[in-house]
């Protein structure tokens, strides 16, 4: 961590020619209990950050802070040198978030779900949505209501949703929950493609993520130690 921190300090926030996510001196509390303290790291294009830690060490809280959904007690998060809180809408344009709750409406079909989600950023044609659904293995389920789908299938809908967003930073909280081996395979392939296209991925999972030709960093909570 000390090395990371030194490196971080060399790059002043607000410098415009830097790319990626920079986190400096982040501290988070939940109900008067300190989850982690003075957390600093950076994530450059084409890298994955795998956040590890036992239950209750603040993995989800960290991801929610990084997505801008929660406030840290102190510390800063910047993207491409811009403060994420000040440039919220620009930052939101760059990120895709998948939390414990998937954001899937049960009374809508997968196609309707994805369409209405995409219209909040980049509208997609029917064909693009159907292609994405086919890629995640939901061919034939397009017209079913999501409450008739299994938990894993719902997750695949969320997966297709993320695939269509064209954002640079994916923030995934336990993305492999309730997915089968094939589903995890789809997901890993997508992550690989995303990283190959200079995307960034932040994720928490208890699964091992081994991808080719990309730097995977591991962040251990609550200590904040970073290994590559």
């Amino acid at each position, binding site marked *: 961590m000390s090395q990371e921190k030194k490196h971080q300090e060399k790059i002043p926030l607000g410098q415009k020619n830097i790319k990626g996510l920079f986190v400096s001196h982040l501290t988070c509390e939940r109900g008067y209990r300190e989850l982690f303290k003075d957390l600093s790291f950076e994530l450059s294009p084409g890298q994955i950050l795998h956040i590890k830690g036992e239950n209750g060490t603040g993995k989800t809280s960290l991801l929610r802070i990084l997505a801008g959904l929660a*406030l840290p007690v102190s510390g800063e998060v910047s993207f491409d040198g811009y403060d994420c809180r000040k440039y919220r809408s620009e930052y939101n344009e760059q990120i895709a978030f998948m*939390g414990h*709750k998937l954001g899937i409406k049960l*009374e809508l079909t997968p196609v*309707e779900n994805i*369409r*209405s989600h995409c219209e*909040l950023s980049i509208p997609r044609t029917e064909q693009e949505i159907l292609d994405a659904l086919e890629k995640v293995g939901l061919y034939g389920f397009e017209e079913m209501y999501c409450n008739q789908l299994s938990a894993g299938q719902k997750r695949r809908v969320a997966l297709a949703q993320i695939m269509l967003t064209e954002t640079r930073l994916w923030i995934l909280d336990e993305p492999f929950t309730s997915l089968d081996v094939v589903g995890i395979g789809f997901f890993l392939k997508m992550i690989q493609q995303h990283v190959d296209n200079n995307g960034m991925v932040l994720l928490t999972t208890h699964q091992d993520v081994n991808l080719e030709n990309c730097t995977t960093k591991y962040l251990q909570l609550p200590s904040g130690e970073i290994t590559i």
Partner: protein
Amino acid sequence: MYNAFLSLLKRDLRLAFRHKSEILNPLFFFVIVVTLFPLGISPEKQTLAEIGPGIIWVAALLASMLSLDSLFRSDFEDGTLELMLLSEYPLSVMVLAKILVHWLITGFPIILFSPLLGTVMFLSPDAIVTLMITLLLGTPILSLIGAIGMALVVALKRGGMLLSLLVLPLYIPVLIFSANAVGSSMAGLAISGQLYFLAAFMVFCLTLAPIATSAALRVSLE
């Protein structure tokens, strides 16, 4: 931005029509509450005409408030609210779309049913027209103010009672001016003052409520 607004509007209307109870329950509630009063107090024409405007308005107010849950609750539970917060478009615009849907599925049917209930309460034809105008101006205010309250309590498990404590006091001006306008119109007095007030109040809420609601949502989801 316009696309996001329309998309959310379409999605929520579609959801409401798949869940018909969301539309029908507030309406039935409104009709039943109003019909209880002639049974409980007196079916006499004079009494009913006197208390009618107030009763219809109180019932409309309660029906609108009790249906506020549909505004953000399900979005909160399934996570779509988080995704809305993470959209690049202003949250207030999307909130406005949701409020508009709430008004379309609760306020609007109430307006359509109000002549029937006005007749039940022996209101004069003039007064029924006034009742419809006040509902047209007033029910959007109920949805707008209610959205702020709902956004504040959405993360609480049992926020229902708190919601009514937050929201009902703010409904009072609408109730006073609307019921008074209908009463005055029964008596053949001028009502433009009350209507102007309602219109001004509606514009005021329309401008500020979406901003307040989105701020409240950000706090609630933290």
